[in-house]
């Protein structure tokens, strides 16, 4: 797995597939999964520098997934990308090691900037 690859975790299939295609088109290695369980398996096996994480997943709570990711690799830059705006959830995410908190939808160009920033700060 390339060092700069991105994992998109979101239960909306259309969203994941479009975003992954778009990212690839712009030269970002990326993959998508629809559940927290798949995400943890992927992260344990691969090396993703940036993770885009939805907080509402069918099998697990987003914050739970975040904690698992941090256990597996605390260097992973996790950007929370959620459609349910909640200051307390965002604060908790940042406390638990998330790199940034974004509310959907994020304009693609803005998202690229955020990914750039996350990648830059990844060790």
């Amino acid at each position, binding site marked *: 797995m390339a060092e700069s690859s991105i994992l998109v975790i979101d239960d*909306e299939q259309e969203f994941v597939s*479009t975003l992954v295609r778009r990212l690839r088109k712009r030269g970002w290695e990326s993959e998508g999964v629809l559940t927290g369980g798949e995400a943890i398996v992927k992260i344990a096996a691969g090396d993703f520098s940036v993770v885009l994480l939805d907080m509402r997943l069918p099998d697990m709570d987003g914050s739970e997934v975040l904690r698992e990711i941090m256990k597996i690799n605390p260097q992973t830059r996790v950007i929370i990308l959620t459609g349910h*705006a909640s*200051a307390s959830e965002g604060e908790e995410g940042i406390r638990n090691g998330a790199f940034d908190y974004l*509310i959907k*939808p994020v*304009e693609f*160009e803005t998202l690229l900037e955020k990914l750039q920033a996350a990648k830059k700060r990844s060790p």
Partner: protein
Amino acid sequence: MTSLVDLFTSLFRSKPRLKPAELQTAFRSHYKEFRSLLTANNNALELMAEMEQVLGAGRSFGMAFIRGNCTALTVNIYKMIRHLSKLSDGRYGALDQSFRDITRQLELVIASPPVTTEGAVILSMAEVDAGMVDQVGEKMANLGEVRNRVGLRTPDGFVITAAAGRHFTQANDLEVEINRRLKGLDFDNMEELYTVSAGIQALIVNAPLPKDLEEAILAHHQQVVTDKDSELLVALRSSALGEDSSNVSFAGQYRTQLNVSREFVGQAYKEIMAGKYKSQVIVYRQQRGYRHQDVHMCVGCLHMVDAVVSGVLYSRAPDDPRSRFVMIQAAPGLASHVVDGSGATEQFMVSRTPPYALLDFQSGVGQADGGVDSLPTLTALQTAELAEVGVRLEEHFGTPQDVEWSIDKAGLLYILQSRPLGRPAAEELSEPKGHGIREDDLPSPLLVGGVCASRGVACGKVFNVRSSLDLLRFPKGAVLVVETPYPDWASLLDRASAVISETGQMAAHLATVAREFGIPAIFGMNQALTTLGNYRLITVDATAGKVYDGRVESLLALALPKPNLMVGSPVYKILVAAMEYITPLTLTDPASPFFKPDSCQTLHDLTRYCHEKAVVEMFKFGERYGFDDKAAKQLVVDAPSQWWVIDLDDGFSSDFDPESRYVDLGHIVSVPMLAIWQGMTAFPWAGPPPVSLRGFGSIIFQSTRNPGLDPGVRSTMAAKNYFLISKNFCNLSVRLGYHFALVEANLGEYLTENYVNFQFKGGAADENRRLLRIRLISDILNEFGFRVEQKADSMTARIEKKPGSFLLERLKILGYLIIHTRQIDMVMGDEGMIAQYRQKITADLHILLDNAEMEG
């Protein structure tokens, strides 16, 4: 002609009489209707007042406010009609028709659908001009005009029209669901706002494009490609109807998608359509008075200019439309860096006349570190070309222009957008640059510098916003302090008192919106985040580019009033149109032959009619049911008076003989009545006319002097004045000559039930003098804590939810005023007399209340 008094009396006698107990039951049920009607009347009047107030105050409101208030209003008026119907045993049935007619008209106004234009789903840029704004939106209509009429170079492409947008929305049945989600949205709850916004946008983006529309888009895209290279990248630009009107700069809040390849054109189109529901746009529309259905999204799909340098030009300085130079802001690469406030720019001032000489040049405008000195990105030839283009566009459109442009690798100039330059408000223009306060009189500032992006002075606590998370936590009234003035922060401009940004300049979109909202803003203020920290109370003087610690009152006194953002907007116009059916009062004279249900033209007329008739009906109770003489007891104070008392429940003491025709004051236990009576009798009436003090009632009746003056008052109350009482309740209705007064008081078990209502209207003198009397009474009542509303020659005064002891004092005042303001309208022409009366009344009232206090 038989007098009404006679009629009343004869009716009394010809009907079976109810026994006091039956009468009490019947009366109580009627009185319940009457009081409910009054409550509905008060509610209706309050709703109308709120709607009027909102139009004048410049407060933002949406269709939810209009719909909600109109619904509440019609419900209350419907209730009034129902209560009146019960009070009158089904008379006034004609009101139903008037009510239906008025409410139908009102519904038509409120539901007024936005104008839609049919037409092609796609139009090539070669076919577009300014006349097609209803099909392609203002941005693209103007760009088509620039291309096809002015003859300047613009990127090739096409517009996906408003008709296409409707087709997409209808094919997926989106509107109902969107409206459902927006209904009842709490604009103060940022989390809810962002969540609802995200949900609606996801709904739109996930909806499939209708096949025919997708094919049409791709076919037009193909045509642009064959003109150019094979792997064409396009920019998709929003072009909403109404978005670029002067001072309504929706621009920049909607999305622009750059570098879009063919496979994502459909997706990008849907994302721009969804951009109509971005949180800051929802807030902005609410603030500016636009309904969601007033805004139609059109999308320009334009060939991506491979820009070497881009920027914005103002055909005149944005803060001074009289300036004699063209202002150009430029930065390497795409124009978006200038507009979204993220990049440092160079600024060129160029003469407006040939040969368009460069007057001034600044580098690193809006950059935190002031920028590095380097060679300008534009040559003298290019600045001259841009200035000439700016002047040409201004001449063509007839107003100063704000133009986005790019120059490509081949050195060709492309115009990307041209729109009217938002004009600063008139008072801002006349305001000198400084504020005239001497520096010595001010504390030393914490920070100085930057550019004034929006003038004004404000105070608030610093709140740094660096992420979306901070957006959700932003407190109302705080000063927004940011590193970069991203357009996304615009959703905070209805909450922020001022904006400070470390970078950015006047062209930034956030600056445009701040100017529009009248929020002071300083951009390019170095070290703002580190110097100001977080949560500190500061005063921002954007006009002078200074920030002070704490509140600086001398500066804040200069703060400009917030502009009324609603005037002229679609929602504002709808409320104005709706008010035509709500507030005008055409039924003013109950004596007029036109005072009847089918003359009611507005909801106000209906309330007026119902109220008037309810009062009449209430007091004609006996006329219909047969009043047992024994129910109304003549009040005896020394001798029988012309005041009558009806006990509705427990207003007489238990030792009172119910068979008696008279009631002695000593048998009355109604607390509010006794207070009114005390006020009425505390001082002898000083005339005119001079009176003997034979008995109180005779004073009253002498005062009316000439009953012949009284043909218009169609009320039995012309003859008798009734106190309707229970232990804690009193309703006193007084009709004397031309004026009518009503006092009603309830001293309930709970504070919320307590109220005193007073109505006063009419008079025998000319209108001016009647008004002067009303004003005198209003002033006095205001002084004693009444909430007074005055309309023409009638006034209402109310106090609610106050302790009983407080209300009893007020009832004494009202008792006093009922007696002592009689006929003084006749002498109201004389300033000296007014002052004399005012003085006497005030003095008497103070004695009245002081005595009471001493007694207490």
